[in-house]
């Protein structure tokens, strides 16, 4: 295909991606280097019969003008990145220099907002991804052996947790674990603790969010693995049986190696998606106990009084950095494959 034709065909798509994905990343990078202007203060002398006093107050007009002239704010360099709400170099340094043991240091670092969000994001990513894949794999193996009539409904209902709007799915579960609702009451009875409330304690909130993640991510692995199972060659399975392999051996030595490339793909997609966990935190109203990186950007932008653009931008850049670290293995692999094809 000539260059010109290729360009004409790809142009709309490429333009959309460059303007609305690449440019915003640059915009975020720039925003992260600036902070909002200080308020312009004026000092006014007000005199009364009892003497004169100096009042300092905000000059709204001048502030607005300054804001209009330089909408980005004032240059701050990497100041936002290392402040208390982000990487918190000073605070972490102080904690590392003076703490009562490892547990104390970890606890105090965890109290810093960025590290709290990072901790939950990483735990969510690396707990939900493997467990959801395991659930998907076991379900695929089990569904593969049950009689045909049950397969249709299983696939139908398995697709629902996956395609449900994340915020709506989490709301449904949230209402079920309410202290007055079916699961909440069942747990209270189970543990004989009438005050047990899943939303009130941090560990329970984490567990609920992780279980929700497995529930909603499992079906994707299930569908992919189930399709993969249909393509495992029957001959290989049968020759393994003739060689004396039992069920377990066949799964371990035939099925698993056959599904490994699929599993790598699923793992990479799921890692990328789980790293941006956001909606469940909103749906479960869990920000007090479990905030994620994406959620902290959202809450910065959704501020009650003002939008903290530079803070959101700095967290965004750090998040993108995390995504790129996760992506490097995929990029290396795709690059190798392409070069193999070219040869």
């Amino acid at each position, binding site marked *: 295909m000539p260059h010109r034709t290729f360009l004409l065909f790809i142009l709309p798509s490429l333009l959309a991606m460059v303007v609305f994905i690449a440019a*915003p990343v640059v915009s975020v990078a720039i925003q992260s280097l600036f902070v909002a202007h200080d308020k312009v203060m004026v000092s006014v002398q007000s005199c009364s019969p009892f003497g004169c006093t100096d009042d300092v107050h905000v000059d709204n007009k001048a502030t607005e003008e300054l804001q209009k002239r330089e909408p980005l704010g004032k240059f701050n360099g990497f100041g936002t990145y290392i402040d208390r709400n982000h990487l918190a170099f000073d605070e972490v340094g102080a904690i590392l220099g003076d703490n009562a043991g490892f547990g104390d240091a970890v606890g105090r670092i965890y109290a810093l907002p960025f590290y709290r969000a990072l901790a939950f994001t990483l735990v969510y990513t690396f707990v939900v991804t493997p467990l959801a894949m395991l659930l998907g794999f076991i379900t695929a193996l089990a569904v593969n052996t049950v009689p045909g009539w049950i397969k249709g409904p299983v696939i139908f209902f398995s697709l629902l947790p996956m395609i449900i*709007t994340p915020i709506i799915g989490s709301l449904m579960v949230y209402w079920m674990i309410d202290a007055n609702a079916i699961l909440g009451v069942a747990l209270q009875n189970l543990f004989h603790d009438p005050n047990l409330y899943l939303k009130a304690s941090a560990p329970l909130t984490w567990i609920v969010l992780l279980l929700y993640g497995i529930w909603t991510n499992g079906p994707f692995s299930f569908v992919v693995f189930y399709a993969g199972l249909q393509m495992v060659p029957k001959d290989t399975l049968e020759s393994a049986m003739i060689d004396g392999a039992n069920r377990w051996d066949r799964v371990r030595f035939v099925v698993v190696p056959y599904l490994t490339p699929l599993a790598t793909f699923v793992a990479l997609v799921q890692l990328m998606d789980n790293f941006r966990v956001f909606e469940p935190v909103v749906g479960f109203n869990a920000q007090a106990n479990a905030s994620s990186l994406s959620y902290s950007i959202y809450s910065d932008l959704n501020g009650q009084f003002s939008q903290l653009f530079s803070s959101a931008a700095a967290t*965004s850049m750090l998040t993108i950095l995390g995504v790129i670290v996760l992506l490097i293995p995929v990029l290396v692999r795709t690059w190798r494959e392409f070069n193999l094809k070219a040869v």
Partner: protein
Amino acid sequence: MEEPLAHRQPPLLRILTTGFVIVWLVIAAFPFLWTVWGSFKVEGDFFSRANWLNAIFGPATTLQTGAPFTGNGYYGAWVVNGLWRSVMNTVIVTICVTVISLTFGTLGGYALARSGRRYSFFVLIAALIFRAMPHITLVSGYLLPFFQLNVWGYLPTAIIVLVAINQPFTLWMLHSFFLSIPKDLDESAMVDGCSRFQAFRLAVIPVMWPGVITTGLFSFLLAYNDFAVTSMLLSQDNQTIVPRIASFLGSIEETGKVMYAVAAVVSATVPLFILVMFFQRQIVSGLTAGAVKG
């Protein structure tokens, strides 16, 4: 058909697998059935501390409304809270996003599949990186420029942003789909005197619909399920269903009208139910096509 003896499962294993499948079925389906059923009750039944069976049989609902089922939640959500306006917005957004995404995506995907040059590979790699960008980080890049340009809050803004966010995935899907359509088809059309675009229009478009429908389903899902973009970029009046539900949640729980939210949530699930019911095969094949092709 009788299974060969060697493949037959021992009874214990058969019980275990069937049991597991049934347990999974219940776990997957229960929250949906529970919420749909409960949305026709009053709050006292749906959140009944005394007995969960109340949510099934609805004694308080009978007491308050005279019947075991009530549409009060739906009345509140649709009429009192004006959910229909958000529904209109959602219809506009999802249809526009799907149509524009597919138009851009088929053109681009076709070009990528037919050009074996190095730069087409770089476009695909760039798309892969773009696909991984968390949507909320992009949103934080949009806000300030959109405020400056005075385009914040309008439906077209959200539509074009969602189209762009959707492009990487659409390109990959359609690229691998076009690879499966034989090159000879459009090349023979070009030998017969068609230009590249005529060949695409006359020879490729008639056979591309299965792939386009599958990709379209996922474009629809992305637009429909999105919360990050629609909640941050749309003004109050232009909100779609999902941010609308999230935004009236806070005010509703204060006034004890949580059933409005439950009804709204169930209403928002209906299109997804229908989608899975009619397009189950396409969704499954789309998921696996992506996976198998890498």
